[in-house]
Every structure is written in C-alpha cells, then in structure tokens.
C-alpha cells in the first residue's frame, strides 16, 4: 500500500470519517441542537467528499489491482454522494417528529454510501462484494430504524432475508467464475472468457447466478418481490434513499460485472436482459396502476424504472451510448425519484404509512410549492419534456434502437403511457380535487423545502440543458467499452 493508493480513495475515507464524526457528535452535542447540527455536519462533510471526487488521481488501478479509478468511478462516486446529501437534507423534521435516533441515521447513510462508492471503484469480484455488503447491511438497519413500528420491522426482516439470499446467490456465482477463470479481477476474467470463446455450461451457470443475484439487488422482475414491502414499511425518508442509492449501486455493479468482466459473453446474453427489462417495466407499471397508496405506487414505479435502465444495459452492443444511457438514467432517476418520495414527507401520518390518493386531495392548495415540486417530479418520472426524465428516456431509447431492439423501444414508449396514467392521477388529486373533510396534518421543514426546491429546479434546468451531464456520462462510459 503506497501513498498513491491512499490518495486514490480519499473520497471513501472522507465519507467514512464523516460517519464516525457524526456518531461522536451525536454523543457530545445536546439533544436540541443535534436536530439541526447533525444533518448540517453530515452535509458539510459530504460536500467536502464531493469536492475530493473531482480532485482526480490518474486513471489507473490501485491496491494491486483491487481498485480502479476512472471516469466511471468518479461519476458514480459523485452520484452517490449527491444522493446522500439530498437524503440527509430531507430527513431532519421527520426524524425529530418520530424520535428516530438522528446520529445513527446519518451515520448509516454515510456508511451505506461508502459501500456504494466501493462498488463503483471495484475492479475485482472481492472488492465488489465487500462494497455490496457494506452498502446493503446499513440499509437493513435503516429500514427497521423505527423500532416500535411493526411495518418497519416487517420491512427490515423481509429486506434482510431476501438480501442475504441474493448475496449468497451472487457469491455462489462469483465462486463459479473463479473456478472457471482462476481469477477474481475483472480484466483477467474478461480475457480468459474471451479466449474460451462461446459460452459453455459452467459459464452459463455462473452468468445466470450473477444475473439473478444482481437482479435481486436491483429489483428486476421476477426478483423484485421484496421491494414493495420493504419500501412501503421503511420510514419515508429512508425509503427515498433506499429507492435510489442501492439501486444506482446495483447498476454500477451490473455494469462492472456484466459489461466489464463478462462483457465477452454480453452479446449472447442481451436477449435475456431485454426480455427481463420488458417484463420489469411492464410488471412494475401494471401493478403500480392498481395502487391507491402513493408510497406503494412509487415503490412499484421504481421497479418500472429499473426496467428502463436495464433496457439500456441490454443494448450494450450499441457501444458507449448504452453505458452513457445507464449512467444518465441513474442520475436522473436518483434526482426525481428521491424527490418524489420526499414530497410524501409533507404528510404527517401514523407509523411509516404514505399518503393515500384521497389524502392528496387539495394538496395543491394546502401546500402550493410542495405540490408544485411533486408535480414536477411526477411529470419528469412520466418522461414529459422539458424535464430531465424526458431526456433520460430519449437517451435510453437511442442505444436500444441502435442495438436493433426496436420492439423494446416500443415497449418502453407504451410503458411510459401506462406510467403517465398513475403519475398524473396524483397530479389530478393534488390540483383537481377539493380537500376531503378529514385531511392529514401537513408538516414542513426548512431543509426539506429547500432541497426539494433545488431538486425540482434542477429537474427542469437539466431537462432543458442536459448536455454537460450527458457528456459526463458519455466520458464515464468509455472505460466499459472494450
């Protein structure tokens, strides 16, 4: 281990330090001040970490080949840290109201972010697996952090059991890969597989196990069953983070493993991924249509968005535009989905429950700016311009068509129509219905409103001027191209 190795992982070190400092501060600062001091401390620390991401070390391998720093790493690091900042900013009011231990909460988000970042910089199956577990285990805790709520307990247990199960599957797949190639680093695996040529029995087993394992992590249909309950039962700010951070990390892993290490087999595999993508988006959307609770609806809709991202993965043979589409969509999805979940924080409801459609009636008049932000996120999730969600759809359809998957592009378009139906139904409730007689109390928070304001503004501005983000995603996708 040299000084260069340490410098390569400064961002991870800083985020870890932030988590530890927050834990110490939680013990030191008195309770009343902690409600504001801890999130501010977390955000300030994460901003420093974000700055350190751009203090780029030369793109190369570090730690004797266990770590790769390249444009791809930087992109995902920045995305993870941004999502963590956003998640920290929306939470304080909720945590104070529900007496959730704030120190643990922010520390958990930071630890999980370190894990996600480790996935992004991995160039070895072992690093990747460590990152994946470091990311996921804190999330199990996060899901159940409202200890007295039985739905939160159910969410945590379900998430934990299925998460452990999928980790085992994934690990088993990695073992098969090691058995076939006698290596754990992506470069060697890729070259051995290339030398072997066409997929045979053992490689197919390995590939299937890895796909299923990662499919669980990303919530790809039919490996998605844990998602609705876990998302629905977890505390709402935690759900907002869970729905984007781990999902982005899962796609970082999918890109690193399926495209990076198993790239030589990718062409044979793309048809399977395309079918999975179609199933995922259609399944998620159809079930979301039937939901009357917005939190559950958003949970299913996040499955649908997984399908759109997976479609771009399936189009890998279109070249860098496919990787760029995944990255761009992950970024856009993180912004708008976290924002949409966070808008539910305005409703003061018992337990971890989200607002039902009836409870949204008249929200547009009761909380005009919050409703406007919610509407912008929903329009963006639908994919209507001028929002970043539209650009994301555009850049996904492009490689999908380029890879000759015209049917999948049509499926994406039709799914967006399905999705419009339930997203716009929420807008209908907010703006076109009068408040019912008994409506839930609305609560607000300064950091919540501010962060939602910034995020919804960004959704529009980056929807009109997406060039810099897309160019960044395009550069970040270059390392994936063989």
């Amino acid at each position, binding site marked *: 281990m040299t000084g260069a190795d340490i410098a390569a992982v400064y961002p991870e070190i800083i985020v870890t330090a932030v988590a530890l400092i927050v834990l110490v501060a939680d013990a030191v600062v008195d309770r009343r001040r902690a409600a504001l001091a801890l999130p501010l401390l977390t955000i300030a620390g994460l901003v420093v970490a974000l700055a350190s991401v751009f203090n780029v070390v030369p793109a190369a391998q570090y730690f004797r080949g266990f770590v790769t720093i390249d444009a791809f790493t930087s992109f995902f690091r920045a995305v993870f840290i941004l999502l963590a900042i956003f998640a920290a900013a929306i939470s304080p009011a909720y945590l104070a109201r529900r007496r959730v231990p704030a120190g643990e909460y922010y520390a958990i988000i930071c630890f999980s972010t370190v894990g996600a970042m480790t996935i992004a910089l991995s160039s070895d199956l072992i690093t990747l697996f460590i990152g994946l577990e470091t990311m996921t285990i804190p999330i199990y805790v996060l899901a159940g952090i409202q200890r007295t709520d039985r739905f939160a307990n159910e969410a945590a247990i379900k998430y934990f059991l299925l998460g452990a199960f999928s980790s085992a599957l994934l690990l088993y797949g990695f073992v098969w890969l090691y058995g076939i190639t006698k290596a754990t680093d992506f470069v060697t695996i890729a070259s051995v597989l290339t030398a072997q040529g066409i997929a045979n029995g053992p490689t197919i087993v390995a590939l299937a196990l890895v796909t299923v394992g990662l499919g669980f992590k990303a919530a790809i249909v039919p490996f998605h069953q844990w998602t609705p309950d876990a998302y629905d039962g977890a505390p709402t700010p935690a759900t907002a983070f869970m729905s984007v951070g781990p999902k982005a990390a899962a796609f970082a892993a999918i890109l690193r493993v399926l495209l990076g290490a198993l790239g030589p087999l990718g062409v044979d595999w793309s048809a399977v991924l395309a079918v999975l993508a179609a199933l995922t988006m259609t399944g998620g959307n159809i079930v979301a249509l039937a939901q009357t609770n917005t939190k559950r609806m958003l949970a299913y809709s996040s499955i649908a968005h997984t399908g759109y991202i997976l479609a771009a993965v399936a189009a890998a043979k279109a070249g860098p535009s496919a990787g760029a589409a995944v990255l761009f969509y992950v970024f856009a999805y993180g912004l708008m989905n976290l924002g949409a979940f966070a808008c539910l924080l305005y409703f003061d409801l018992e337990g971890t429950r989200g607002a039902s459609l009836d409870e949204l009636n008249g929200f547009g008049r009761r909380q005009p700016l919050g409703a406007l932000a919610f509407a912008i996120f929903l329009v963006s999730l639908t994919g209507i311009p001028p929002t970043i969600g539209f650009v994301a759809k555009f850049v996904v359809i492009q490689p999908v068509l380029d890879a000759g998957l015209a049917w999948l592009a049509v499926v994406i378009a039709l799914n967006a129509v399905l999705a*419009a139906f339930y997203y716009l139904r929420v807008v209908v409730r907010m703006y076109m219905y009068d408040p019912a007689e008994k409506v839930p109390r609305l609560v607000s928070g300064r950091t919540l409103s501010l962060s939602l304001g910034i995020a919804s503004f960004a959704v529009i501005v980056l929807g009109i001027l997406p060039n810099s983000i897309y160019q960044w995603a395009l550069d970040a996708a270059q390392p994936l191209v063989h």
Partner: protein
Amino acid sequence: MTNVLSLLVVIPLAGLIPLFLFRRDERAAKQVAITTTFVELVVSLWMVKQFVIGEPGFQLVEKLEWLPSLGISYLVGVDGISVLLVPMTTLLTFIAVLYSSGGAIKTRIVEYMTAFLLLEIGMVGVFIALDLFLFYIFFELMLVPMYLIIGIWGGPRRIYATLKFVIFTLAGSLLMLVGIVAVYLQSADASGSRTLSLPDLIELRGRFPADFQFWVFLAFALAFAIKMPMVPFHTWLPDAHVEAPTAGSIVLAGVLLKAGGYGFLRFGLPLFPIGVQAWLPVLIVLSVIAILYGAIVSAVQKDLKKLVAYSSVAHMGFVTLGIFVLNLQGGVGAVLQMLNHGFVTGALFLFVGIQYEKTHRRMIADLGGLANMWPLFTTFFGVFVLASLGLPGLNGFIGEFLVLLGTFKFGGVPLGGLFWGPLAAIGVILAAVYLLWMFQRVMYGPVREAYRALPDLSRLEIACALPLLLLTVILGVVPQPFIAYIEPSVDRLIRLATDPSFVVVAFK
C-alpha cells in the same frame, strides 16, 4: 433584427415573471396575461412583415448549439405555411385570454393565466421548431398546460376528459419519440455524426430505406393522427371539448389540432416520401370517412358544444385529404382550411361559450328564439356558421373548394379522385344540413321566458369576436395574398413528397 422567432418563445416566458410577482392580485394577473399575449401578437405580425413572400425555403432561421454531444441544435425558422399559423396562434391565444379575463374564469386566475402562457410557448414553438428534438419538446409542452386547463377549470366530467386527452396524446407522441430516435440513428453518416435538423435530414433522406420509412412514418402518423384527430383516434376530442372551459376549447380546436396537420406537412411529407406513398390509401380513406362520419355524427348531437366538436373532426378530414392527395391545390387548400378552421371554429366555440355563460344551457332542445333577443349575437354567430359550412364569399369555402379540386385531380390508388371527390363533396352538403338545422333550432322559434332578460353581446365579447369576423370575411373575399405566402412552400413540399430523389438546399 433576426431574433424575432426566439423573441416569440421568450415573451410568454418573460410574462411569467410579473405573473409570479403579482400572484396575490387577480386583476394584475389578468392585465399581465392580456399585455403579454398582445405583445406576442404584435411581434408575430412584425415577423410576418419580415417574411419574404415567394421564397419556398425557411426564413428568419436561427441556430444555436444546444446539445453538441448528441448533435442536436436549437434551430427555428418559418416557411410560408408556419408564417401564417404563428400569428393565428397568437391571435387565438390573445382572444382566449381576453375572453377568460371577463369573468368566465372565477377561481385560481393566476394559475390559469400561467397555464395559458406556458401553453402559448408550446404552441408557437411547435410551428417554428426545425429540429425534431426541439419540435418534440414543444409538442409535449402543449400537453401539460392543456391537461391542467381542462382538469381544473373544466366541466363536471373534466377529470375523465383530461386524462383521456393526455393518455391518447401521449400514446401517439411517445411512439413518435421512438420514430424520432430512429431517424436520428439513421441519419448517421460514415463518420457517425448524427442530426435531427430538418433541413439536413431533408438533404440526406436518401439514406432512409423503404421499410424504415414505412415504420417510422407510421410512428409519426399515429402521433399526428391522434392530435388532429383522424377517425378512429378521435374519441378523446368530444370529451375534451365538452369539458374544457371556453378559452380552452378555442385554443384546443384552433391551434392544438393544427399541430397534427402541420406535423404531417412539415415532417411527414418531406422526410418519408416512400412511407407516405405506402400509407396513402389508408390516409385517404380515413380522411373521407372522417368527413362523412364527422358530419353525420354532428347532425345527431343534442349538445351544442359536442356538435361543434364533431364538426371539427369533419373539417380536419378535409385537411388530411388535402394533404394526402399530394397536389398543389390540395396542399394549399389544406393549409387554408387549417387557418379557416382556426378562426371559424375558434369563434364558434367562443359563441357557444358566451351563450352558455348567459343561459347556462347547452342542450339544443333547451334553447330557441335567441335571435329575437340578441341581434348582435345572431349576426356574428350566423356569419361563423355560414363560414363553417363553406358559403362562398366567406373563408371556409376557399379551403374546402381547393381541397375538393385537388381531390378530383387525384390520380392515385385506390379508385382515384373521381370516386373520392364526390364523396367528400357530400360532406360539404351534410355540413350545411347540420349547421343550418342547429342554427335554426337554437336561434329561431318562440322566445323562452327564462331567457328574455338576458343581455346581448358585451363590449368585451364583441372585441373578442370582431377580429375573427374580419379575418373570416377577408380570407373569403381576397384569399390571394394569403395563398401567395403558402403556395411556394406547399409546392416545394409536394415535390419533395412525390419525388423521393428530389433534393433541395433547404435554406440559404
């Protein structure tokens, strides 16, 4: 000044700022909206003045780098077709806003005016965008404000109507998005650089093979056919129109439907000549069905607003028929018909709205004898009804006549112009039947006691209707100046559509 087109996009956007600042003052909001749309109207007329008649290509072109990493640019310009559709849009928006501020809209004025200004950006943008990506953004930008206008300020079944409107429109436009991406990928040259700029695409359309054109034209055609709407995609239209507030109906019928016809002309014909030929029989048959079906269904409507809505289906049938007979008369007629329909049907919806505001009745059976009480109303309404049924001397006649002329000359499959021409002509006769019968039932007969004290047109209502009346007469009596704008551009489009190897340098 060459930035006049961008100015047209910026003015409504700038109007949102004072609207936001005065968001607690409804009076100020109305004044801001009226001023903004009026300035927009004046600037659009100034744009017409700068346009050079006789040049078929795009003028007042502006180009800015926008998404260099995707090869997409901000590219706007107008030709002889859009140069007239833009002022039509700004005029109808101004009238819609003016009428709404007179008391027709009672709740949430500020939000309403915001929606209208956003809508205006989308509507003007659709007619000036020359990059497919930009066009798509404006095309969709029209959707959300209209969704809110119908859904918040509409009638009792407004939520069903507005969701139906959005879902239908989105289904079409998202498929068009797939088509746009397909065009984008197909535009790649040897070096891999791609474009969505219309002038460039027209030059390199030779790269679009036949089966590609077949499918991609279908994707575009679905979006435009739903927007127009063509039969059988028209079922959203009566619901949306009936539930929309009056001003919403005016711009929905006057402008939004034109986006479909305009899309066919601007993108369908020049980019996919082989695709057009392949789908031509279907489109002709559907157009004639729309003309006859729209007329017959109008005749049996009990609801006045629904009658006008269905008559739009018939009138739009003339537009598509004129476009797809692919000759000069048909094309010019189609564009004129779009303008005429904008002014006349916009006015008809205005008068149905005025009438409803006074009587609170829309069922034809509940009305009657209005002519005795409202001489002014009767005169205006009568002229628009006569224009709508195509009376010579008023504008409706010129458009339909040219379309019919073009149809008779049409030599394509199936069956040829001598079959379709007379059939479409029957539609003109039917229009006279249902419109005059409606007029008779609504305006004549015994005066109802309940309506006896109701006032005739107010000054505001006259101010809204007068420009439309003047245009109806002027376009009817001297159409030649307008045709002079349209003809060169349509001529070029027809050549592009009928000869796949015809190449032009699109703008100088």
